[in-house]
């Protein structure tokens, strides 16, 4: 009886999502210990409020970017330009929407320069172009992904500032705020975006051959080509998609703060996204990937940030604390370390 329970536990312990889930639960419990109100949820004005909702909502841009990054990393690539892409998308949206004060029927109303839908499409389109550019450098020219995307990481912020003339553009057009701050059926709107993207990706990777193709290309590009896969097209799509998701994240970020800041929007987001993917159990060596894991990873990072703020850690040390926790989690996930700690000593060594 006890034996089978242990076996079950051991089996569960080997599941790739076991450690991310445990880490997330531990962080939530930690938050709860410091703040008894943490798990409290309530409905006010037909909207769900609470720290948990807050964490989910705040993590939305990171979750989106991490999902895109997961696919890129599965092809044995990396995209460190997503932060800059976020800034570009925000700048395009802000530039096109802006908001001019006009008097309509005796009421002062802000109107958009360009119809909002068009502006949103343009912003996401620009971000997708950024991704395509990365994909062309990686798949077409054969550059190393980290170098190829480094170019846009540096240039992207410049482009964003050029678009905004080096200034922070404030947006006054009300309907745009819905993207990042709106509520639909009691839940924050960004969560619907994340759910839709996640659902789409899940369908693409499980119900079409995309998952198999991405893994094959990531694990052995040469053999994949010999088997008739069009590795270039797959890489191009994956990078473009990663850019597209960064673009959507950019809209959310920009709508959250009601402005576009070419310098700071999405700053270091690429590193958080890579971290989220890694925490979720996807190897940077490419191949097997876990979309759910990356979502969990993003939530871990956001919960950690929340814990640091809510426990009143002085801001000057919070990066150090964050690094220490991340280090611990990565150690826990390390196969080598686990084997070293848990494996009984070999018989031969005593002799």
């Amino acid at each position, binding site marked *: 009886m006890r034996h089978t329970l242990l076996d079950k536990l051991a089996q569960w312990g080997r599941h790739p999502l076991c450690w991310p889930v445990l880490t997330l639960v531990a962080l939530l419990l930690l938050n709860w210990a410091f703040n008894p109100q943490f798990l409290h949820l309530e409905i006010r004005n037909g909207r769900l409020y609470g720290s948990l909702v807050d964490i989910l909502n705040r993590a939305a841009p990171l979750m989106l970017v991490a999902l895109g990054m997961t696919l890129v990393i599965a092809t044995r690539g990396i995209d460190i330009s997503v932060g800059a892409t976020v800034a570009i998308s925000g700048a395009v949206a802000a530039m096109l929407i802006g908001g001019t004060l006009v008097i309509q029927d005796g009421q002062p109303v802000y109107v958009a320069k360009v119809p909002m839908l068009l502006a949103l499409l343009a912003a996401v389109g620009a971000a997708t172009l950024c991704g395509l550019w990365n994909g062309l450098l990686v798949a077409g020219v054969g550059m190393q992904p980290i170098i190829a995307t480094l170019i846009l990481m540096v240039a992207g912020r410049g482009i964003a500032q050029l678009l905004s003339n080096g200034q922070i553009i404030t947006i006054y057009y009300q309907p745009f705020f819905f993207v990042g701050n709106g509520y639909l059926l009691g839940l924050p709107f960004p969560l619907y975006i994340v759910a839709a993207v996640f659902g789409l990706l899940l369908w693409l990777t499980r*119900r*079409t*051959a995309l998952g198999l*193709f991405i893994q094959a290309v990531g*694990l052995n590009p040469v*053999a994949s080509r*010999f088997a008739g*896969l*069009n590795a270039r097209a797959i890489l191009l799509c994956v990078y473009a998609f990663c850019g597209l998701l960064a673009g959507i994240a950019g809209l959310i970020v920009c709508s959250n703060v009601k402005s576009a800041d070419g310098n700071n929007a999405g700053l270091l987001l690429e590193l958080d996204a890579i971290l989220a993917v890694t925490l979720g159990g996807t190897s940077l060596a490419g191949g*097997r990937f876990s979309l759910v894991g990356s979502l969990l990873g993003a939530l871990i990072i956001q919960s950690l940030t929340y814990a640091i703020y809510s426990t009143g850690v002085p801001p000057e040390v919070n990066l150090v604390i964050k690094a220490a926790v991340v280090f611990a989690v990565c150690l826990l996930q390390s196969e080598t370390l686990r084997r070293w700690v848990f494996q009984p000593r070999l018989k031969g060594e005593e002799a």
Partner: protein
Amino acid sequence: MAATASQPLLETCGLGKSFPGVRALHQVDFRLLPGEIHVVMGQNGAGKSTLIKLLTGVYTPDSGEIKLSGQTIHPTSPEAAQALGISTVYQEVNLCPNLSVAENIFIGRLPRRWGRIDWAEAERLATRELAELNLHIDVSKPLADYPVAVQQMVAIARAMAREAQILILDEPTSSLDAGEVKQLFDAMRCLKEKGVAILFVTHFLDQVYAVADRITVLRNGERVGEYPVAELGRRELVSRMVGRDIAEQSTAAARADLCGQAAGAAFLSARGLGRHGAVRPLDLELRAGEVLGLSGLLGSGRTETARLLFGVDSPDCGELSLAEGGTRFRSPRDAIEAGLGYCPEDRKTEGIIAELTLRENIVLALQAKRGLFRFLSMRRQLALAQHYIELLGIKTPSTEKPIGQLSGGNQQKALLARWLATEPRMLILDEPTRGIDVAAKQEIMQQVLVLCGKGLAILFISSETEEVVRVSHRIAVLRDRAKAGELAGEEIDEQAVLRLIVGAEA
């Protein structure tokens, strides 16, 4: 060294090792005498590599003991084994291609002088070590500048430079051509005369009889027996390895069967197809229901030809045409679309995707052909995998086993399955029997003939002339990256092919 010729240098008693679900080695007694070349033979999975890994400390035994000159030893790592005088050279060369030959030989213990590396001394010593193996090369050049055979010799020199008394060679010949193998054997005989004991693992029967003194046969992890080479004929050796009698049909009889069949219509023809630096313009015609053998020495342009036909490399000149109209292939995709399949020579880097499962590897080409959205359901995938596992006799615990963990023969069968699943009309088999055991080899050759009987056009590439002669209706021979000639029907025998391979002066 106290050991005399009668006392074994290395001995194992009742050695055993199990892995979850598999008994890899059971009660194995093995004796290696000083100054002998001892071959360990067995099919894939017989326990050869487990034995080697136990002797070199990669694994620790579950039972039994290992004795070196009568003393029980417990090697816990390859370094520990090396310190005891047991050096190993693996099938794949484990050296640093970017470093010089001398650096590779003395890496980690370069001779020093006044605290600095004494390069002149290192090169002098390296030259001397290689000279003992009868190899005279410039040791200051990077290893990558030399062919695989030389790299293999450098690996041996490196092992010997550590004063090894025991040298373990794990299939060192699988990527060498005939001349290079001879060079290696001369080096082995040199070492033998110095009293070094050599444990040699190979799949090639010819090589066993060319160089070995004694043979130990393993089957299913157990020792079948230990024999002096002179007392064990080929037939007996093979039947002991396989555990049953293999009726080895003579080459002449096999050819007689072939000649009775009529060839079909042309499927693919190449006219003046060539690529600068790869292969000079050549003509080839592949016909449905016919095996075209492609023979030649290593580096004669066999694989390069296959790559041109399959659209991996694009030709500089000439044209490729399908009988039913069509043009040159810009990529393997185009070739696959036209009904071609290619089992590449380098199985590990160009064939299998090691971390993916057997099932995923089998369905990959078919899925690629169908495209992204016409996804094969999991049920179809499992059914396909199961079908080919049974049809080709792939030995695997499940369809979900990562293919990298299967033996070479089973990987090769899985690659064959990958192409069969696409229902091809032509297959290119580049060294399909390299590095796999006798039984699997026979099964694959049998399958080639069955496929051909079903109307497939087959291009069969092999460096073993006998194999090519056995299965081919026609044979094209390459020499120095150009077509030296083509043989058909009655003209074909091993001598004729060899004459073409070697050229006019022979």
